[in-house]
């Protein structure tokens, strides 16, 4: 994954535009501060615990925290009144676009100004580096649209209500977008890079660690169709695997599976404000984003060209709480349109999509076409897998190539296959843009693999869980697609599921319904899922004020998963207290570390790191951001607070080491010394100029980069790759240079393959109405092995949300691709069915959270892992109930009726 990101990530500095990100400080509002509003004790529980979410009070009292809540009048200095902008989209991709004509609108509903590609061209507006197709944010005339829904013009209204009245007419307005000659449809072409994973083990009984003969962990990725010895070798193995599947006498199963396009359907349609302050040459943006740094950078890049007539020297970004995200607000292009519109107005610009527009233009989950083959020997051992996956990426590259990569990494499931030929790619098509949505490609592989294993079990008349158990990766084994460690608990989950009454009694219950109108079936599925991307970078600062109040600052954002709350309780381990405040979505402050981001190996440069900022995704709160805050809290304790405590305790304490002290009842204790409160220690640290704030960057790829740091004569090795400290009384941070760093190169990242995995499973019971064909989830067991648990309620909440979204994915949700899809402007929640409480068996899904496998088990990602097994378990249950295998989801009543007719 790392190498292919080389071109993807560029430093913000490249555009020469400064970026400042701040956030909506809802905790500063008078409403939030009224202590009486807060139930006794506030959100904070005892150290390391939360009574409720740190953002809970703001959310439950209806405060302004989402981007949609803000108008210019709420923001200091922003011009009022606003202008309201409608992004007019193409509704076709098979003809030449010749221009727009708004005469069909009644005169009072016409925009007062229109901006088209010609304006952008005239003004030399550039392209955000990360984009494909190259710019074309507004389609120039004389071209065929790159995709359905490609914007063609920005329409400016000076009144909210006029736009509200015009909106329904503009949504799907073929008459507004003029067309010329027919043009051939885009022939799908792959987005680069494709993913190819070949795995071949040595014959015989080589010890596990030495058994790999060909793998991407030895020498990096391959591209079998390209020149070079390694690629040629890979091609030989591809052929060899094909031959073996044909001629080894194995039982061979070969099927095609398909999954659909869905919408992340976060509840707050994308909205935001922008203002270009021409005096200050500052572009202000206010958005609820999962990737503030990307949005700010993209906005800066479009105005970076030297000959650009729009003068922007600074982008000031205000990050709001996103009203849901699930990946759909990660590298969304929405912010680019805000930034563009602002350049053509002297006022504040507001773009607020309605739900129809969000369906038309928002990021979607890829549909997939998966050709899967498995060979099994007589003893029931999996011998070979061939998985060829094609994802429909739609019209912009976004992160599609990486989604395909993750689909590939998960292409052999949690099983041991001596031979694997996995190839996955996303294609550029004329469909709506797909991108990052919860599970990031794994859900497709999981559906195909877990369905096929059930099919194999049926064919062999063996228990489907037993078959899985026989073929599972063993703890500590590397996984077939190249990551170093299979997650623990796969076996334990299977053992528990196998013994569960729902599984044990399934045949009996199925038979009992054989003659009823309602059929019943039970299905099981097991998944593992990587969390993190294999190359993750996190910034954070932990600071203590004179009164002992802690503040955590992070560039992570909380889209509802509980990141802010989790990070608030994290300092308790080292500092004996929770943070009073967590500042999310911050970027500018981390410039104090002066990091240089590059995949080139710059080991001599102590400021180098492969990835500085990552967007908030990939279920990384517990696995990555928590580490950052935990490590930073330890640093602050050891280099700042412990020395201050020693001074308070006097010379007798001069030798006290971290192991000699501990926090109890809010006080720092050491045998023979008076317990000290954090407030006392903090006051001393501030007064004496000890370190009162630590700011760090940490980088992970299979393990954390580490280095030695010396502060006040104390040298210690920390799992971080950059450190700056601020002392009591000082205004600025001092950088502490790292020494003896253990860092990563692209090669070492490939060889170590930094993926980390969590495991989850589901048993689901469904009832199916033989008349209507309607399938309903009626009971379930949801298993998860999250390792160390930080806030149990948040983990359980993620499981519940994953279960519900899995129900939607398996049974309810679907957007047709292309012209019949949401581009027709008629898609809303009356047609697109997201699960309601009655669909989710809310009173009868048991949660089984496995305990950490060891005292030092990591806290693993949850929010994607728990999603993956749900849909395949439902599909397997439907197969059990109906006796028919559905290889494409969603499994709608029509599909079921068709096979039962």
């Amino acid at each position, binding site marked *: 994954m790392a190498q292919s990101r080389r071109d993807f990530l560029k430093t913000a500095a490249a555009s020469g535009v400064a970026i400042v990100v701040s956030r909506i400080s809802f905790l500063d509002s008078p409403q939030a501060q009224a202590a*009486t*509003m807060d*139930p006794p004790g506030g*959100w904070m529980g005892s150290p390391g615990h939360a*009574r*409720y*979410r740190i953002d*809970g009070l*703001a*959310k*439950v*009292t*209806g*405060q*302004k925290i*989402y981007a*949609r*809540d803000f*108008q210019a009048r*709420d923001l200091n200095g922003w011009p009022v009144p606003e202008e309201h902008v409608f992004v007019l989209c193409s509704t076709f991709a098979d003809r030449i676009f010749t221009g727009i004509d708004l005469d069909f609108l009644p005169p009072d509903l016409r925009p007062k100004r229109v901006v088209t590609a010609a304006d952008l061209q005239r003004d030399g507006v550039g392209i955000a580096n990360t984009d494909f197709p190259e710019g074309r944010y507004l389609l120039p005339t004389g071209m065929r649209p790159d995709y359905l829904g490609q914007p063609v013009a920005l329409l400016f209204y000076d009144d*909210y*209500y006029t736009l*509200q009245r015009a909106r329904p007419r503009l949504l799907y307005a073929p008459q507004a977008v003029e067309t010329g000659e027919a043009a051939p449809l885009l022939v799908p072409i792959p987005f680069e890079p494709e993913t190819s994973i070949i795995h071949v083990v040595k014959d015989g009984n080589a010890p596990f660690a030495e058994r790999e003969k060909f793998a991407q962990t030895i020498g990096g990725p391959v591209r079998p169709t390209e020149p070079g010895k390694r690629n040629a070798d890979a091609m030989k193995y591809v052929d060899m695997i094909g031959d073996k599947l044909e001629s080894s006498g194995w039982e061979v199963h070969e099927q095609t599976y398909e999954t659909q396009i869905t919408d992340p*359907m*976060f*509840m*707050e*349609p994308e909205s935001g404000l922008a203002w270009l302050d021409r005096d200050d040459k500052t572009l202000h943006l206010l958005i609820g984003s999962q990737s503030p740094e990307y949005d700010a950078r993209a906005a800066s890049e479009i105005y970076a060209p030297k000959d650009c007539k729009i003068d922007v020297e600074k982008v000031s970004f205000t990050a709001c*709480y*996103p*009203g*849901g*995200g*699930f990946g759909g607000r990660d590298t969304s292009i929405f912010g680019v349109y805000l930034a563009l519109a602002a350049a053509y107005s002297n006022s504040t610009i507001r773009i607020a999509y309605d*739900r129809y527009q969000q369906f038309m233009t928002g990021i979607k989950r890829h549909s997939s076409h998966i050709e899967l083959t498995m060979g099994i020997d007589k003893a029931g051992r999996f011998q070979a897998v061939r998985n060829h996956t094609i994802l429909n990426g739609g019209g912009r590259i976004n992160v599609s190539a990486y989604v395909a990569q993750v689909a590939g990494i998960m292409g052999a499931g949690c099983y041991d296959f001596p031979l694997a030929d996995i190839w996955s790619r996303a294609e550029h098509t004329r469909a709506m843009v797909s991108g990052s949505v919860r599970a990031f490609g794994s859900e497709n592989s999981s559906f195909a693999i877990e369905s096929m294993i059930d099919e194999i079990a049926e064919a062999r008349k063996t228990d489907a869980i037993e078959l899985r158990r026989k073929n599972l990766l063993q703890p500590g084994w590397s996984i077939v697609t190249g990551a170093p460690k299979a997650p623990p608990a796969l076996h334990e989950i299977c053992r528990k599921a196998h013994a569960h009454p729902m599984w044990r009694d399934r045949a009996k219950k199925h038979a009992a319904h054989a003659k009823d109108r309602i059929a019943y079936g039970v299905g099981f599925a097991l998944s593992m899922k990587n969390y993190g991307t294999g190359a993750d970078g996190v910034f954070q600062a932990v600071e203590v004020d004179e009164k002992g109040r802690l503040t955590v600052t992070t560039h992570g954002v909380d*889209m*509802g*998963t*509980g990141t802010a709350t989790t990070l608030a309780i994290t300092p308790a381990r080292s500092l004996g207290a929770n943070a009073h405040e967590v500042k999310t979505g911050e970027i500018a402050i981390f410039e104090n570390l002066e990091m240089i981001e590059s995949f080139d190996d710059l080991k001599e440069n102590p400021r180098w790191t492969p990835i500085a900022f990552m967007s908030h995704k990939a279920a990384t709160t517990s696995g990555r951001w928590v580490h950052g805050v935990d490590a930073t809290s330890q640093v602050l304790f050891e280099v700042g607070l412990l020395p201050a405590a020693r001074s308070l305790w006097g010379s007798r304490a001069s030798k006290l080491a971290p192991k000699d002290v501990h926090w109890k009842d809010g006080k720092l204790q050491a045998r023979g010394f008076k317990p000290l409160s954090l407030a006392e220690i903090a006051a001393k640290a501030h007064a004496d100029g000890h370190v009162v704030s630590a700011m760090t960057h940490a980088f992970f790829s299979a393990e954390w980069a580490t280095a030695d740091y010396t502060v006040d004569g104390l040298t210690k090795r920390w799992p971080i790759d950059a450190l700056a400290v601020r002392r009591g009384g000082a205004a600025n941070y001092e950088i502490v240079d790292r020494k003896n760093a253990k860092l990563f190169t692209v090669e070492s990242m490939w060889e170590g393959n930094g993926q980390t995995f969590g495991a989850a499973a589901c048993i689901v019971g469904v009832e199916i109405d033989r008349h209507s064909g309607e399938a309903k989830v009626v009971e379930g067991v949801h298993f998860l092995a999250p390792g160390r648990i930080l806030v149990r*309620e*948040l983990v*359980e*909440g993620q*499981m*519940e*949300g994953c*279960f*519900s*979204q899995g129900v939607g994915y398996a049974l309810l949700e679907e957007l047709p691709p292309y012209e019949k899809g949401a581009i027709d402007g008629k898609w*809303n*929640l*009356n047609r697109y069915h*997201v699960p*309601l*409480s*009655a669909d*989710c068996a*809310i*009173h009868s*899904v048991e949660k089984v959270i496995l305990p950490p496998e060891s005292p030092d088990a990591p806290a693993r990602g949850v929010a994607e892992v728990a999603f993956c097994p749900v849909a395949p378990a439902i599909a397997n249950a439907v197969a059990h109930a109906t006796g028919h295998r559905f290889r494409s989801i969603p499994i709608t009543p029509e599909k079921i009726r068709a096979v039962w007719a």
Partner: protein
Amino acid sequence: MATIDLDLTINDEKYRRGDIDGDLKLVDFLRQEVGLTGTKFCCGIAVCRVCTVAVQRVPGGHQEAMRACTTPVSDLNGKIVTTVEGLAKDGELHPLQTAFLENFSFQCGYSAPGFLMASYCLLDRLKRSPIPTADVDDAIQDAVGQHVCRCTGYVRYHRAIRQVILSTPGLVTA
């Protein structure tokens, strides 16, 4: 566009506007005109119920759950509207708000105001006509079963509402 003189009460405050478009949707009136943005917007077509507010015809009347995205202000003339901002009284959270917090009921929180207002109306109904404990889950399902929440899977919303119903005297008969 038919204009009307509007006179309604929102969260105990009187709002009088002359010459206002009677078709204006309540959600726009609240968010755009009054600046009360606690009432959310999602589908705009009366399906998801994220925009639910409580409306009484007269003081002391039944609290009725209404979808602000499709209700024109002309329907509300003379009526009494409670939004999420009006739930806490005298510096104290409403028990439903506290229960939503303590149960970690919501995640992104966007659906929370709709769930709060619909269950607020349910409590009002149960106060007037209590039900047997055995019927509580069904009553909750009736009240909020059509509400969409994309984040949570609904479990903790239902749990919190049930807790409040069972711990508030006089809402259940046995």
